[in-house]
């Protein structure tokens, strides 16, 4: 009889799911898995902190559309995954997190490096498993990948006690086949009656706007979105997660809406009489004061998750289904065609012309200009991964994304320290793409140890630090809403180029405007990782901005006709 260990079954099962790469960090409880990995035909990337493993798996998933996998030991290793799992959960990213666990006989005993990780991650996973029998491993892995990558995508955790990993079972005793998931039947196809109703609303609209979210990216519905928009000349605004769903330079694209959205997107939403929400969830950063959000608009809400329908806004026409399938059906069922409202398009164009995003050329190093230059040099291509804060908003506002899955950023949870490891994961998914991480000096220092990973595996990620020696977004709020009392937001200068050098990574510090172009070119042309430390104007803020609790039409820092701003 052929016997296999639980760890061997695990590796086999992962391969059967098509896994090619795992981001992980070893430890006592996962020794059996690492022993299998020693000569397995499976790439394992050794990160320098478990948090980086989960963010890298997340970046891999977002760049590729496939399920990302991370691995950690029990206790502290598993706990270090938490913010990354929560990040993936908030942004609906398919990952499978594998954690070691103390042997089943010691569960609940406060054993060395024990933590109740299935209990801890209950509210931040789509589902999780504690495997108590080696024979169940294969089916559990299969179910986990299925759950993570279907319906509304999300993270699934599998907790693996050490004795389950070392247990030997006969090959024919391993349970296999299709896992039975009686309680999990995602709805993919939209109801045709609802789709007809939605089309009726579109035919009769005078001021329609599409509000597209991350669901469009996940479902691969970008083509259908553009087709529908062009069909009826519908202006499109996207959320932070939806950037790339429609090219930045598309005439119907209004850019991002919400707290740091474009003025014209926010005006269009506020004036609209029909809002077509696709794979978006009316997040508070998008809607501002909910009671003042799109008050004149009827709402069509297309989402794969029934729980999103009516959560924040009660739609006139709810459609539960996969965005790609629903939009394709809408296009197919549309009887009329052509621009439904020329005057509205003219109005939107006028807003766009009169209220562009603010760019200042005054000889100072402004982050907006760095992003614009980067976008120009890469011709709107590459994969742009951001950290969280001002750097993220500047990148979102000023980079000219062309395609889906080009923009990778922690939206819902807003996890500082996400970007750098996620960029590593993204590069392993798309090694032929130029991967750039846009970071602040604060967030970059949250996972700065990953310079070691980048050096070890020669990951040619370009690191652009927009260094203002502040936790800039918090400082901005303190400036605007807390009487300029900069409480614990000023950071002492750091020699990032020196740190990079210590890891064997090239870098350059940029202090003046005339260096920007050359510095970016040098980094992009360099064959390998490269760090750029841009010392930007310290007081630069992200504008426009909707103050928390205000309506999205009540922006501050708006563009005025003199080319300056109101603040």
């Amino acid at each position, binding site marked *: 009889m052929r016997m296999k260990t639980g760890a061997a079954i695990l590796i086999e099962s992962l391969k059967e799911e098509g896994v090619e790469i795992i981001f992980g960090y070893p430890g006592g409880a996962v020794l059996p898995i690492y022993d299998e990995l020693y000569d397995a035909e499976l790439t394992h990337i050794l990160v320098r902190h478990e948090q980086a493993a989960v963010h890298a798996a997340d970046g891999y998933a977002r760049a590729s559309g496939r399920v990302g996998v991370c691995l950690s030991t029990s206790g502290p290793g598993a706990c270090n995954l938490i913010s990354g799992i929560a990040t993936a959960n908030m942004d609906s990213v398919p990952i499978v997190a594998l954690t070691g666990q103390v042997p089943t006989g010691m569960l609940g005993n406060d054993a060395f490096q024990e933590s109740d990780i299935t*209990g801890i991650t209950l509210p931040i996973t789509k*589902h999780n498993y*504690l495997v108590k029998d080696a024979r169940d491993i294969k089916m559990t892995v299969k179910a986990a990948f299925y759950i993570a990558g279907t319906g509304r995508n999300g993270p699934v955790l599998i907790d693996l006690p050490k004795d389950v990993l070392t247990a030997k079972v006969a090959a024919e005793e391993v349970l296999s086949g299709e896992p039975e998931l*009686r*309680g999990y039947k995602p709805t993919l196809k939209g109801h045709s009656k609802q789709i007809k109703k939605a089309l009726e609303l579109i035919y009769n609209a005078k001021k329609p706007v599409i509000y597209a979210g991350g669901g469009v990216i996940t479902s691969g519905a970008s083509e259908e979105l553009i087709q529908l928009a062009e069909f009826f000349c519908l202006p499109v605004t996207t959320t932070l997660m939806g950037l790339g769903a429609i090219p930045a330079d598309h005439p119907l694209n209004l850019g991002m809406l919400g707290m740091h959205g474009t003025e014209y997107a926010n005006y269009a939403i506020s004036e609209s009489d029909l809002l077509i929400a696709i794979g978006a969830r009316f997040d508070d950063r998008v809607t501002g004061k909910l009671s003042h959000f799109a008050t004149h608009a009827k709402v069509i809400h297309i989402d794969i*998750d029934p*729980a999103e329908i009516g959560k924040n806004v009660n739609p006139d026409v709810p459609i539960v289904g996969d965005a790609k399938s629903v939009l394709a059906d809408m296009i197919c069922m549309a009887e009329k065609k052509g621009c439904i409202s020329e005057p509205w398009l003219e109005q939107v164009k006028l807003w766009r012309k009169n209220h562009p995003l603010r760019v200042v050329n005054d000889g100072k190093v402004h982050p907006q200009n760095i992003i614009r230059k980067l976008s120009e040099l890469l011709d709107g291509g590459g994969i742009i991964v951001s950290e969280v804060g001002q750097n993220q908003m500047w990148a979102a506002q000023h980079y000219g994304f062309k395609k889906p899955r080009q923009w990778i950023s922690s939206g819902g949870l807003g996890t500082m320290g996400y970007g750098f490891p996620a960029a590593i994961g993204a590069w392993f998914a798309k090694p032929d793409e130029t991967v750039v991480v846009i970071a602040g000096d604060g967030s970059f220092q949250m996972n700065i140890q990953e310079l070691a990973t980048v050096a070890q595996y020669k990951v040619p990620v370009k690191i652009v630090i927009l260094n203002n020696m502040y936790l800039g977004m918090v400082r901005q709020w303190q400036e605007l809403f807390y009487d300029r009392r900069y409480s614990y937001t000023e950071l002492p200068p750091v020699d990032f180029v020196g740190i990079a050098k210590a890891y064997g990574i090239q870098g350059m510090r940029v202090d003046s405007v005339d260096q920007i172009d050359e510095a970016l070119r040098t980094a992009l042309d360099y064959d390998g990782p490269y760090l750029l430390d841009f010392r930007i104007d310290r007081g630069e803020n992200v504008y426009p901005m909707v103050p928390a609790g205000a309506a999205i039409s009540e922006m501050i820092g708006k563009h005025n006709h003199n080319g300056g701003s109101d603040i």
Partner: protein
Amino acid sequence: MKQHIISVLVENKAGVLARVAGLFSRRGFNIESLAVGTCETPGMSRITIVVIGDDTHIEQVKKQLNKLIDVIKITDITEKEHVERELALIKVHADPGSQRSEVMQIAGIFRAKIIDVGAQTLVLEITGDSEKIFAMESLLRPYGILELVRTGRVALQRGSLGSALRQ
């Protein structure tokens, strides 16, 4: 704000109760009562939850519950024709003599059973809807209730419809 009785059919798996109950507490709902046990289908359990909230919030909780992988079916049976019962055990002070016979009389009126007799106490078992149990409880209170335990409400839809699964 009104009371909802939510019947949740779940996979009988470890941790399922924590998943369901946790969802309520995370969304700020107090569970009035919760009863769980196996049901007509092997491998499944039925959880009956009584919760107070406005319709929008309850609707959201039901949708969130539906997202749990181990939840198979949810029925809000409040609006439907249904029967509901709860069982309570009440240990009441009852000295031998007139006090004891009075307590026994009350038990008789409510069709409660006496299931334990002590030197100075009786344990009564009563089944009914919550109001009936509350009524008996308040009548017994002057005698001195030493301990009281309730199962939480269980409920089923009336009529010939079978398991929620086969509907």
